[in-house]
């Protein structure tokens, strides 16, 4: 279904930046909506069988998205599901063009965990001539050590395991 959609994933170790580009087979308006509406984000942000759930979202400059990632017990081997909180604070929004801000691990009230690195993100949207929309995500950290810490968190939370399971199902 998506084999003809561009997907690029670049790690720039020299400036602690990860750049991800992806084309989507939908117009700009629709893609923008899927990235900026809580009910829609909840449908795709959490990788199956993990799922994302929004607690609050205020999509405007200075507002934030507070959500959690729910990891089912089967994934981690724990007795109960595990919940990990994340927060994106929006600093700049240019409708149908881009939005940027900071990313952090936090508690259920949105208080950032000072022991884990904060990152910066910028998501840029551009409509292409063939009815597709290109999204460029630029994620920057203070050091490469921070980038690793963020990746490591994905492993620790069991989110990566969710993907591995998905792969196993597909194969």
């Amino acid at each position, binding site marked *: 279904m998506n084999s003809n959609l561009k997907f690029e994933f670049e*790690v720039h170790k020299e400036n602690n930046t990860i750049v991800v580009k*992806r084309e*989507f087979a*939908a117009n700009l308006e*629709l893609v923008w909506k899927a990235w900026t509406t809580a009910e*829609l984000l909840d449908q795709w942000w959490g990788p199956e069988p993990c799922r994302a759930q929004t607690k609050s979202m205020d999509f405007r400059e200075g507002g934030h998205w507070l959500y959690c990632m729910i990891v089912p017990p089967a994934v981690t081997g724990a007795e109960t599901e595990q919940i990990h909180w994340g927060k994106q604070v929006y600093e700049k929004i240019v409708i149908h063009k881009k939005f940027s801000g900071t990313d952090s691990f936090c508690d259920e009230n949105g208080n950032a965990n000072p022991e884990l690195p904060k990152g910066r993100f910028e998501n840029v949207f551009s409509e292409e001539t063939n009815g597709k929309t290109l999204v460029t995500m630029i994620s920057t950290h203070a050091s490469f050590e921070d980038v690793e810490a963020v990746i490591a968190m994905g492993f620790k939370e069991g989110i990566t395991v969710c993907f591995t399971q998905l792969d196993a199902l597909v194969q």
Partner: protein
Amino acid sequence: METRRDIFQALADPTRRAIITLIALQAMTPNAIAEHFDSTRQAISKHLQILTECELVTQKQQGREIYYQLEVDKMKEIDQWLIQFRKIWENRFNQLDEVLFTMKNENK
């Protein structure tokens, strides 16, 4: 975690990345490696020293010459790490494809 950070720092340098590409094909002496670069022989030695400290390359004595060879397993370790992260986004976007597909149909 300590070593891994070192590896990434080692790979942050373009010359060191070029050295790795070079010796991935065959083990080489420091002189043979230096011939491929404009940098001084000392500069290349320094790069090789850093790569050796991170265990990305190892030395082996052959006759009177020292050869540098790539530690393929170490490189794979790094790739695995980043490939997993790439996979997170790949799968997430596949889910978004489905959401967009549904949205399109609803709009019709």
